[in-house]
C-alpha cells in the first residue's frame, strides 16, 4: 500500500522534503502567491504524511535506523570501522516517533492556518522558508541519533525561530524579542557544543548510542550534564530561564507561535534524551530527579502567577506555556527520581513518566490551539490587549468554541485531553510526595481561574460598537484550529488507547537505555 521507497527512506525524507520546500519557496513565491500557498501547504502535507508513516513503522517494527551515505540504510556500523558508527545516523525509536507525530500534527495545522492569517503581510516567501526550516529543524532534532547533528539541527531551529519572531517588525518590539531569543539560544548552543566537546574528548564518539555505551559518569560527564540541562531547560522555557518565552511567544505571528511551542518541546525531548539515554543509572538519580522536579515546580508556580496579571492575551498564554512545561518536568522528574528501583517504577514511576510524556502531546495540541485562537482574534480586531476586547462571542462563534475547548483542556477539566495527563501526574506524584501533587492541583485551579477571566473579557458581554462588523475567522484558520480542537477532544475521550499505543512505548523506549544502545551497536 505504502510505496517501498517512502517506507525505507522515511527518516531522510522527513528532513529532506521541508528543506527542499524551504529552498524552492523564494522562487515559487515569484510566480504567484497562490502557487506559493499550494507549494507550502503541499510540502507540509507530504511531510506530515511521511512522519505518520514513519511513526507507524516504528510502533509496529521497532526502532528504525537510517544511516546517511551508507550503502544500506540499516548499516549503522561500516564494515571496516572497527565497530564504531562513524556516519550520521537517524535513530528513530518510539520516543522520537512520538515527537514526530506531534510535530506533524501541529506543523500541518499551523501552516494551514497561516495561509489565511498571514495573507495580508509582505515578504511571505521568506516567512514560509523560515517556517519550513523550523519544521526541518524539529524533525531533525527529535529523529537524530548523532549528538553533533542534534546541535546542527538545534542551530537551524534557533536561527529560523529568531527570524520568524522578528518577522512582524512591529516598531522594533518584535526585533527586540528576536534578539533576546537569539542571544539566549546562541549561549545555550555554545553550552551544548562544549558538552559535545567533552564527550568527544572522553569517548571519541559523537553517536548518541556510542556515548551512552561508553558513559562512565566521571566528573567531566557531570560538568557536561550541568551544561546540557541548563541549556536545554532554557530552550524549553523552564523557570528560572523562562524570560525569553513571553516576549518571543507574544511577538511572533500566531501560526509561528503555535509551532514555537513544539520547538520548545523538541528541546525538552533533548533534555530527556540526555538524562535517560546518556546517563540513566550512572547518575545519582534521586538528586538529579529532584533537580528536575524543582525546576518543574518552579515553572508551574511562577508561570501561572505571572500569567494572572497579564493584559496581553498572547503574553498571558506564553506564561501559561511556561507553567504547563512544569507539569512535564514534574512527571519526568518523579520518574527519574525512582529510576532503577523497579518496584517503585512499576507502582508509580512509569505512570508519572507516562503522564509527563502524554502531557507533551496534549500541551502541543491545546496550547497550539489557544495561540491560534488568539491569532484569529488579533486578525479580526487588530489588538491583543484584553482590556480593549469584549463581546466577540456574538460574531466569532467558532473561535469561541475552540477557545473554550483549549481553555478547559489546559485547566484539566474532565472530558478533555489535559485532564487525562494531569490526572496521571496527580495520582502518581501523590504516592511519591503528596505536597507536590497538591501544588500541581493548585496551579491547575489558578490556570482555570485565569482562563475564566480571559474568556469573559474576550467573548462575553454585550456587542461593543467598534466590533459590531467583526466577522468570523476565514475558513483555513478555522480548519487549522478545528484539527487541533477535535484531536484535543478525541484524546480526552479515549486517553487509554493513546497511552497504551503511543505514550507507554515512548516512555519505555526512553528508560530502556540498553535497547537504544543495542539498536545501533547491534547488541554490543
Amino acid at each position, binding site marked *: 500500500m505504502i510505496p517501498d521507497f517512502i517506507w525505507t*527512506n522515511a527518516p*531522510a525524507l522527513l528532513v*529532506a522534503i521541508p528543506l527542499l520546500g524551504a*529552498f*524552492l519557496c523564494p522562487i515559487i513565491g515569484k510566480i504567484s502567491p497562490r502557487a506559493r500557498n499550494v507549494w507550502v501547504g503541499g510540502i507540509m502535507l507530504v511531510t506530515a504524511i511521511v512522519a505518520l508513516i514513519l511513526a507507524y513503522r516504528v510502533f509496529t517494527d521497532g526502532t528504525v535506523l*537510517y544511516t*546517511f*551515505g551508507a550503502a544500506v540504510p540499516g548499516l549503522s556500523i561500516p564494515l571496516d570501522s572497527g565497530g564504531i558508527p562513524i556516519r550520521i545516523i537517524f535513530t528513530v525509536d518510539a520516543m522520537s516517533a512520538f515527537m514526530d507525530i506531534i510535530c506533524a500534527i501541529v506543523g500541518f495545522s499551523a501552516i494551514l492556518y497561516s495561509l489565511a492569517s498571514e495573507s495580508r503581510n509582505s515578504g511571505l516567501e521568506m516567512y514560509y522558508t523560515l517556517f519550513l526550516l523550523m519544521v526541518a529543524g524539529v524533525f531533525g532534532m527529535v529523529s537524530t541519533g548523532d549528538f553533533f547533528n542534534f546541535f546542527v539541527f538545534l542551530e537551524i531551529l534557533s536561527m529560523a525561530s529568531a527570524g520568524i519572531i522578528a518577522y512582524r517588525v512591529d516598531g522594533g518590539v518584535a526585533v527586540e524579542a528576536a534578539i533576546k531569543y537569539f542571544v539566549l539560544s546562541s549561549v545555550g548552543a555554545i553550552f551544548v557544543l562544549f558538552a559535545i566537546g567533552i564527550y568527544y574528548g572522553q569517548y571519541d564518539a559523537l553517536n548518541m548510542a556510542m556515548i551512552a555505551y561508553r558513559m562512565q559518569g566521571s566528573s567531566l560527564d557531570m560538568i557536561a550534564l550541568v551544561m546540557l540541562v541548563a541549556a536545554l531547560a532554557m530552550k524549553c522555557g523552564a523557570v528560572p530561564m523562562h524570560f525569553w518565552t513571553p516576549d518571543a511567544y507574544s511577538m511572533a505571528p500566531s501560526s509561528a507561535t503555535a509551532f514555537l511551542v513544539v520547538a520548545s518541546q523538541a528541546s525538552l525531548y533533548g533534555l530527556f534524551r540526555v538524562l535517560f539515554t546518556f546517563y540513566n543509572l550512572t547518575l545519582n538519580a534521586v538528586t538529579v530527579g529532584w533537580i528536575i522536579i524543582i525546576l518543574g515546580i518552579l515553572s508551574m508556580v511562577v508561570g501561572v502567577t505571572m500569567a494572572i496579571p497579564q493584559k496581553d492575551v498572547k503574553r498571558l498564554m506564553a506564561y501559561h506555556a511556561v507553567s504547563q512545561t512544569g507539569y512535564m518536568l514534574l512527571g519526568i522528574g518523579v520518574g527519574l527520581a525512582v529510576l532503577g528501583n523497579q518496584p517503585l517504577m512499576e507502582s508509580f514511576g512509569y505512570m508519572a513518566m507516562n503522564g509527563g510524556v502524554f502531557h507533551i502531546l496534549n500541551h502541543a495540541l491545546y496550547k497550539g490551539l489557544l495561540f491560534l485562537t488568539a491569532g484569529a482574534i488579533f486578525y479580526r480586531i487588530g489588538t491583543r490587549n484584553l482590556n480593549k476586547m469584549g463581546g466577540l462571542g456574538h460574531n466569532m462563534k467558532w473561535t469561541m468554541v475552540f477557545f473554550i475547548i483549549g481553555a478547559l483542556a489546559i485547566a484539566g477539566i474532565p472530558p478533555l485531553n489535559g485532564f487525562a495527563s494531569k490526572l496521571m501526574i496527580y495520582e502518581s506524584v501523590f504516592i511519591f510526595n503528596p505536597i507536590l501533587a497538591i501544588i500541581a492541583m493548585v496551579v491547575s485551579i489558578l490556570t482555570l481561574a485565569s482562563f475564566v477571566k480571559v474568556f469573559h473579557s474576550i467573548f462575553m458581554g454585550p456587542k461593543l460598537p467598534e466590533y459590531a462588523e467583526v466577522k468570523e475567522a476565514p475558513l483555513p484558520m478555522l480548519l487549522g484550529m478545528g484539527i487541533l480542537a477535535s484531536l484535543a477532544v478525541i484524546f480526552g475521550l479515549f486517553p487509554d488507547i493513546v497511552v497504551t499505543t503511543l505514550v507507554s512505548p515512548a516512555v519505555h523506549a526512553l528508560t530502556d537505555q540498553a535497547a537504544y544502545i543495542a539498536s545501533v551497536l547491534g547488541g554490543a
Partner: protein
Amino acid sequence: MSKLVRFAADILYPVVLIFGLYIVAHGHITPGGGFQGGAVIATGVALVIVAYSYKEVIGWIGKGGLMAREVIGLMGFIGVALFAFLFGMPFFYNYLAGQGGLFGVPVAFGPNPGELNTGGTVPLMNFAVGIEVWGGLSLVILYLLSGLIEKKDQEEEGS
C-alpha cells in the same frame, strides 16, 4: 575613499575572488571548504563597499543576483543529496566516488600528496555551499552596510 584605496580595491577584488574560489574547489583535500571559500569571496564584496559607496556597489552587484546564487547553491546541495535516490541508495550516498571521470578518481591507499579529481559528490557539495555562502553572506554585508550615512562634502572631496 581616496583614489589610492579604490585602485587597490580594483586590483585586489579579482584576487580575493579567485582565492575564495580556490578554497572552495580544493575544499575536499585542503583545509577550508565551501563555507570558508564563500566567506572569503564575501569579504571581497565588503572590500569594494568600503572603497566605493553603497549606492555605486549596489549598481554593480545586484541583490537579485545574490539571492539567485543563494537559492541555486541550496538547491544544488540538496539536489546532489537527493540524486542518490535515483540510484536506489540512501540520502547523501556518494555515488560518484571511485567511479572514474572528473570527480571519481580512486584514491590510492596510504599517504599521498592529494589528488584534485577525487571525493565524488563532496566537491560538488562544496561548490554548492560556496555559491550559497557567496550569495548569502554578501547579502548580509550589503544589508548591514546599507544603513551607512555618507557625509556629502567628504564624498565630493574624494571623487
